[in-house]
């Protein structure tokens, strides 16, 4: 098991390095001269040269890459060209909205999907199954940000149970959580529909396995056999999907900010794009990719815990 974890950590490190190389290449190598790119066509030579020096773009590409990485490891993500403020400052508060939103949605989606998927598989071919399949079929077709708009329309505008948007800050934790309720429901529901279907098909497949027959021959009822044997085995393929979902939810969280006026990473990045603030785009992208790779790593570990065939004894 230890060897497996070490192997995965190595993989994690390697992925981070390669991902950072990709980001660096796209942002700093492809535009040619990032400083000129950021200032646009009309800038004069002197301003461009000054910016280049300012951002440390004078060195060789390799040196700049190393500088960037070592900076990030120490918490220095560069200075935003637009705001003239360290990117770390800009990001820290916003990170604490986007990430919790994604995590909350992941938990909600899983909690919703499991019982629905299990019920559907256990009643395969009967009315309940058809009903659930129909419902999830609709669920996976709904764009999450549109669903968010509908939720605002119904729950904030018409029923006035929630505010229509905004984020009061984590100093008031309950109010903060409340403001994340509608967005996380909007994100979670379509993902829950997907996950429920995956759970259903994984379970149907495990229900057909021979060890289910052995379980019944031992005297377990259908229900006991499903819960004690099929479910545990069905979890394994489902885990992979949950890991993938996090990356979708993170992207979704960034997009859905627009609907709920949440001051998360989305606004920062999109403004960074329009204003050609490559420093911001580069560092925030790296952060997002890091979050995804980290979650993948955690899922791999969970995988090994769930499936003993992946661990090898000495």
């Amino acid at each position, binding site marked *: 098991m230890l060897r497996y974890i070490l192997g995965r950590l190595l993989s994690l490190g390697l992925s981070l390095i390669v991902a950072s190389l*990709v980001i660096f290449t796209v942002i700093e190598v492809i535009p040619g001269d990032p400083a000129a790119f950021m200032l646009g066509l009309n800038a004069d030579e002197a301003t461009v040269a000054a910016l280049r020096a300012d951002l440390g773009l004078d060195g060789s590409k390799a040196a700049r890459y190393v500088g960037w990485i070592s900076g990030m490891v120490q918490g220095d993500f560069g200075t935003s060209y637009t705001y003239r403020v360290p990117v770390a400052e800009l990001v820290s508060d916003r990170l604490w909205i986007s990430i919790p939103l994604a995590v909350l949605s992941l938990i909600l989606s899983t909690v919703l999907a499991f019982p629905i998927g299990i019920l559907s598989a256990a009643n395969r071919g009967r009315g309940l199954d058809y009903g659930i399949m129909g419902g999830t079929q609709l669920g996976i077709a709904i764009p999450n940000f*549109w669903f968010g*708009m509908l939720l605002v329309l119904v729950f904030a505008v018409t029923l006035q149970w929630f505010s229509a948007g905004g984020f009061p800050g984590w100093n008031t934790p309950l109010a903060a959580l409340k403001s994340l309720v509608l967005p996380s429901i909007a994100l979670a529901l379509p993902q829950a529909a997907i996950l429920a279907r995956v759970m259903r098909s994984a379970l149907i497949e495990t229900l057909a396995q021979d060890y289910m027959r052995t379980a019944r021959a031992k005297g377990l009822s259908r229900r006991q056999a499903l819960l004690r044997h099929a479910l545990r085995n069905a979890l394994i393929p489902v885990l992979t999907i949950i890991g993938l979902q996090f990356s979708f939810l*993170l992207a979704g969280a960034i997009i859905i900010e627009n609907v709920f006026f949440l001051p998360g990473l989305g606004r920062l990045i999109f403004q960074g*794009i329009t204003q050609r603030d490559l420093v911001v785009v580069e560092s925030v992208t790296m952060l997002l990719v890091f979050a995804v790779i980290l979650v993948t790593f955690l899922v791999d570990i969970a995988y090994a815990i769930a499936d003993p065939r992946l661990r090898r004894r000495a």
Partner: protein
Amino acid sequence: MTRLPVSMILGAALSAVFLAMALLSFVWTPHDVEQLVIANRLQPASSEFPLGTDQFGRDLLSMLMVGARVSLAVALVAVSIGVVIGVPLGLAAAATRGSLLDELIMRGNDLIFAFPSLVIAILITAVFGPSAFNAIIAIGIFNIPVFARVARGGALSLWTLDYILAARVAGKGRTRISVEHILPNIVNLLIVQATIQFSLGILAEAALSYVGLSVQPPVPSWGRMLSDAQTMIYSHPMLAILPGLAIVLMVLGLNLMGDGLRDLLDPRLRRQRQ
């Protein structure tokens, strides 16, 4: 010919409606969507404007039609990128299982999976600016490891079968075997995955247009119709509901058709029907 399930017929009908709208929009729309005629703003549904107009005076029906074209085109090309690049990679990985090539392809897949479509779109548009082309690339790149993985998985389970060994005894090499034996037997898997990725592509394009990273004005897209409608949502909710509904119905239709296709192509079910 076997009787097709109702859901599949419904799905095909829905998809056909949107396909028709998209194709028609190439030659004709009730009104010109690129003209902003403020005088016509916020008209309710009428014979002149069957679904009404938005706050810029554009006919909603016409915008939906052009939007359908955009969504379908982006999703189609993105899926094609995934298939054309991903499937050969997956086949090559399975044919050389355990080799350096296989490792590289698997690692490459994992790397791309670390970059959600949105992040790829952000990277590309930061350097090249937003456009439909860049949205296609962003979504398409993410499709590559999806198809590579499906192709590799399907292929691996076939490589152990005796008829592959028989082909090797008949002197055939790995490439020929991949093309003659493996590919035809995983086509069903790929078709099903393609329909899934196609409808995911439509949702992805809508999200990208919503944040302005896809097709740019004045060409309308469903996603941008939604972001334009956001400020009007309290007074004129229909502006937001209609494009969203279009997305839901289009994707629903495709998914229903895809499910039906999967059942039709399932060899176990097929044998029962014969």
